[in-house]
C-alpha cells in the first residue's frame, strides 16, 4: 500500500536552482596535448514517452551519480536509470496496456 499526499515539502528549503525541474549539467575539465578541454554533459530522460528530469551528473572519473541514489556511483548511466526506475517505482507507473515497445 502506498498513498502519496500532494504536499511537496521541498519549497521550505533553500536548495538552489539545481533542484528546479530542469536537469543539471556537468563540466569536466582536463588538459590534453597542450589543449584545454571542457566536456559539458546534460542528460535528457524519457520513459514510456514521458520526459523525466534526470538529476544526474558525471564526475571527473566518468562515473555518474544522482542524489536520488546517493550511495552508489555508476559506470553506466543506463544502469543508473534502471536503478532509478526500480527504486522509485511509483514515479514510473505501469505503461498503459496495448502500448508497444516500438
Amino acid at each position: 500500500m502506498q498513498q502519496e499526499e500532494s504536499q511537496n515539502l521541498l519549497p521550505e528549503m533553500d536548495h538552489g536552482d539545481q533542484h528546479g525541474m530542469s536537469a543539471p549539467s556537468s563540466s569536466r575539465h582536463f588538459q590534453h596535448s597542450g589543449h584545454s578541454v571542457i566536456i559539458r554533459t546534460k542528460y535528457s530522460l524519457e520513459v514510456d514517452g514521458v520526459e523525466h528530469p534526470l538529476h544526474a551528473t558525471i564526475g571527473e572519473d566518468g562515473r555518474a551519480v544522482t542524489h536520488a541514489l546517493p550511495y552508489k556511483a555508476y559506470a553506466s548511466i543506463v544502469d543508473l536509470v534502471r536503478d532509478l526506475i526500480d527504486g522509485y517505482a511509483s514515479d514510473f507507473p505501469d505503461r498503459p496496456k496495448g502500448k508497444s515497445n516500438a
Partner: protein
Amino acid sequence: MRRDAISDPQALGDYIDGVWALKRLPASDDRYSRYDWFVLWHASAMMASTPPGNSANRNAAHSGPVFLPWHRYYLSRIEAEIAAVLGKPQFRLPYWNWLTDGAMRQQDQPNAPIWDDDKMGGTGYPVRTGPFRFDLNTPDASTNWVVRIEMRSRTSIVLTRRGLNRNIAGGDIRRLPGGTGVKSALSRTAYDRPGWDRNSARSFRNELEGWRGPPGSGTHNRVHRWISGDMSLGHSPNDPIFFLHHCNVDRIWAFWQSRNGANTYAPDQNAPDDLASHRLGDRLFQRNDDDAPPVLIDRMLSDIPVYDSFTDLMALEDSIPVA
C-alpha cells in the same frame, strides 16, 4: 557510554522505545512526527549540493569532508531527544557493529542477531516482523511503523503513508563489508584530501564513506546498499537501523581520532568558497525550521562520544603493515 546493541539489550530496547516515542510525537508541522522531522533533515541535507551543481554530488552531509562531523551532530541531536522523551538523561545510542556480522558467512549475515524480531526485525516490502513492522491486518494500527517522508526521483520530498521497505542482501550488494575497507581507511593519516569529494584518494573520510578503497570494500555505502529498500535512498533514516549503522561509523572515526589526533581535519578555513559547508569553521547544515543554535564543524572534533570498545578496530590496526 555508547554500547554494542547486541551485547547491551537494555540500550537497544531503550532505543526502540525512544524512536517509537519520537514517531508518536508531532513535529511543529503536525503533518508528520518529530522522528519524521529527522528524516526530512537528512533528505534536505542530501539535496543541498555544495556548491550548487557540482558534478561529484558533494552535498551538505555526504561525499565531502563534512560527512563525519555532520552525522556526528545528527546522531547527537536524536540521542538527546530520545533521552528527553524517555526521561533517561543517561541514554546513549547503541551501535550495530556490522564488522562483526561482515565476518560471518555470507548466507548467515541476513540472519544475524540484529535482525531478530525482538531487535530490528526482518526484511520485506514492507517489513512485517519486529518493532518496525507494517501490517494492514493488525488489530491495532498504532503498532504499524508508517513511513511519512519520502524522496522522489524528481528530487522532491513528499509526504507518503506506507510501510518500511528492506531488501536485505537482495539488492546489488550481497554481503556486508569485511574488515578490509575499514583497515585500509584506518591506515590513512590524512582525514581528507583534494579534491574533497568522492574522488579523493588516500583519504580516511572517503574510504570510510565508501567511495574509495580496496576492491569490494565500500564500508558505509555498502551497508546502506546491503540493507537496500529505504536504506539505499536519501530518506534512509526512515529505517531506524540507520542510526545504529552511523553510530558504528562514528565509532570508527572516534578510534581514528584517538590515533591521529582529535583536531585532525581538513580543509581549514583558508580553503576556497566552493568548499563552503566543508571547511573547519563552517556551519553544519540545519533546516530553516530548526530552532537549535548554529554549530560549527570544529565543535564536532572535540565532542567525541565515548564508546565501550575499540578492541576489534585495534585488531584491524595491528594487521596494518608497518610502512
